[in-house]
């Protein structure tokens, strides 16, 4: 009884209304997924949605994949609390797309089939390179998944008024079970539609709130900034509040900026989306759509963040159950009462659900296609069994994500996302760029770069203050932090590039030049690229 009374006071809005709106979202998307799943016959259907999406559709889905809860709740909250320094995140996340657009998207689409490993192993030794690429894919997906699941638990405490660990665990389990259902039934096509619906809802919701906030200040950005400075102090308008404290924290920011800008083009769940469109030209259009949608969304978050800072204030936000992450929901409540809060909360849940589904299908495809079919069965798996293995993997990953999500409840989750970006930038991007642009690149270079990048990023995190020795660490009482920064990027990313270079130069084995020629011709012309399946 007492616990119930306590939760009553800490939650905002009406939990039942929040749950109702969320249930509506689930019902609509389930119908869409069921309808989309009718044509899931072949591997190309299940993994790549029959390559039948258009550029604009896929671009919207990419935005859906990319704008995770960290983007929406995290950046709004960071701007509301730390002002300008929160804005720096969104710039890194956006500029990163130019790397994907200019160097990676079209060439990947032209040479690959379903996964990142298809491209990386194209002209190198198939089995070791595929295994390495699958390992880094699974590692990135795993860290990203854990962060999303943990974020889901934290969100509930605020939105549904569920404060106890048991209640939060049940919510994590429900999110996981729903996600398994979507991916199992809908495959890539169903998952893509969930992303599209979610992206549309998220961007529309943010747009309404942005216009609302601006209207309160006479559509004058300067007025809004002035109001934010009045409640939060002049310092919120310029950089330095979060990262400007010490020399070490400044260096940490450089490290983070490096991981953000180079990580995106190595995120496997983003790369896999390029295979759902019929041609490289559509892949280019998808990235263009994604860049516009994501960029405009981040401009909204700038207004929302400063709006929350001005209207609600830093102290109230930090005192709310969700902490920093509660800025956007609190702002919704302030503006539109329980109904807008319910809508925005449902969108936030949908965001987590959709991102988790996108990550799961990527990890399952990589395991079934790269590890099972190519490495274990040496490319001789029956076509039907590969998809069956993928479906079983979906269930296994779902269960692991649920258990992991329950395990990391209440942990510092921002580092998991930063780790995913750092691993993607150190382990995946060097090999992607080398294999697309450097003729001499060989198997040893790829293996050194992927395992070296992955290993160094994970080791540096383990020995960083995020894990031990500080107030905010996972282990507060012991101190084995040897590396002073919380982001490994500044060391592990150059190391990944260097290892690929040194590994290549020290190896005498020459790769087959005919296959290298084939890869280059195909990557630039689109000759022989996988075509859309016809139904």
């Amino acid at each position: 009884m007492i616990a119930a009374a306590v939760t009553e006071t800490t939650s905002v809005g009406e939990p039942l209304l929040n749950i109702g709106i969320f249930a509506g979202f689930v019902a609509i998307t389930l119908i869409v997924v069921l309808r989309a799943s009718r044509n899931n016959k072949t591997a190309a259907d299940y993994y790549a949605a029959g390559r039948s999406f258009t550029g604009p559709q896929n671009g919207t889905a990419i935005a859906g994949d990319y704008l995770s809860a960290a983007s929406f709740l995290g950046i709004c909250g960071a701007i509301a609390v730390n002002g300008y320094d929160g804005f720096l995140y969104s710039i890194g996340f956006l500029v990163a797309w130019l790397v994907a657009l200019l160097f990676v998207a079209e060439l990947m689409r032209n040479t690959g089939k379903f996964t990142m490993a298809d491209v990386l192993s194209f002209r190198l030794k198939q089995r070791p390179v595929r295994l390495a690429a699958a390992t880094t894919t699974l590692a990135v997906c795993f860290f990203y998944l854990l962060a999303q699941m943990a974020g889901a638990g934290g969100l509930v405490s605020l939105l549904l008024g569920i404060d106890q660990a048991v209640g939060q665990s049940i919510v994590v389990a429900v999110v996981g079970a729903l996600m398994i259902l979507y991916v199992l039934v809908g495959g890539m096509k169903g998952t893509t539609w969930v992303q599209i619906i979610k992206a549309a809802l998220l961007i529309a919701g943010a747009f309404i709130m942005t216009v609302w906030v601006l209207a309160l200040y006479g559509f004058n950005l300067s007025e809004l900034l002035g109001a934010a400075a009045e409640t939060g102090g002049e310092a919120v308008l310029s950089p330095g509040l979060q990262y400007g404290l010490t020399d070490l924290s400044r260096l940490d920011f450089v490290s983070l900026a490096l991981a953000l800008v180079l990580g995106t083009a190595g995120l496997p769940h983003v790369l896999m989306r390029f295979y759902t469109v019929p041609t490289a030209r559509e892949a280019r259009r998808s990235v263009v759509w994604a860049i516009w949608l994501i960029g405009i969304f981040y401009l909204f978050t700038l207004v929302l963040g400063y709006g929350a800072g001005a209207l609600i204030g830093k102290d109230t936000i930090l005192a709310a159950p969700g902490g920093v992450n509660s800025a956007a929901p609190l702002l919704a409540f302030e503006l539109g009462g329980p109904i807008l809060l319910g809508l925005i909360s449902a969108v936030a849940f949908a965001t987590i659900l959709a991102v988790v589904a996108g990550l799961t299908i990527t990890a399952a495809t990589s395991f079934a296609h790269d590890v099972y079919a190519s490495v274990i069965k040496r490319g001789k798996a029956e076509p039907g069994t590969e998809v069956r293995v993928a479906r079983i993997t979906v269930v296994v990953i779902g269960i692991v994500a649920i258990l992991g999500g329950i395990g990391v409840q209440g942990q510092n989750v921002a580092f998991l996302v930063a780790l995913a970006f750092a691993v993607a930038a150190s382990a995946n991007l060097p090999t992607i760029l080398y294999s697309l642009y450097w003729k001499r690149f060989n198997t040893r270079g790829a293996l050194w770069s992927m395992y070296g990048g992955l290993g160094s990023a994970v080791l540096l995190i383990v020995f960083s203050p995020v894990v031990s020795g500080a107030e905010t660490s996972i282990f507060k009482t012991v101190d084995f932090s040897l590396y002073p920064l919380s982001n490994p990027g500044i060391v592990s990313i150059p190391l990944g590039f260097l290892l690929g270079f040194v590994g290549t130069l020290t190896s005498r084995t020459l790769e087959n030049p005919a296959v290298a020629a084939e890869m280059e011709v195909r990557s630039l012309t689109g000759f022989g690229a996988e075509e859309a399946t016809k139904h």
Partner: protein
Amino acid sequence: MSNDAPGSATSDRVTDFERAQASEPFQRLRKRHRSFVFPLGVAFLVWYFAYVLLADYAHEFMATPVFGNVNVGLLFGLGQFVTTFAITTWYVAFSNRRLDPLADEIRSDLTSTGHAARSER
């Protein structure tokens, strides 16, 4: 020998990719692509890191007011959005005009010479 699994790489052995790679149109396409994306890539990364370092180490400068409550830092930050949108638009226009027609031409040449092999699949 280097490819021990029948993956995507073995789809079209009859097409002479080494000759296609050495051909004049392909070398022109390759040069055109690289001489566009590499300098542009360097340029936007330099601009991004210049911005990051300014935001990180030049707080005073970034806090200089320009008009109303808008300061240099905010304008530079919004400038990153503008350049990202501009580079995107520029690259798409360049690809549509200069890369795609050439790539289409090379692809249709390859398809007609490798026709016998492809129709068997």
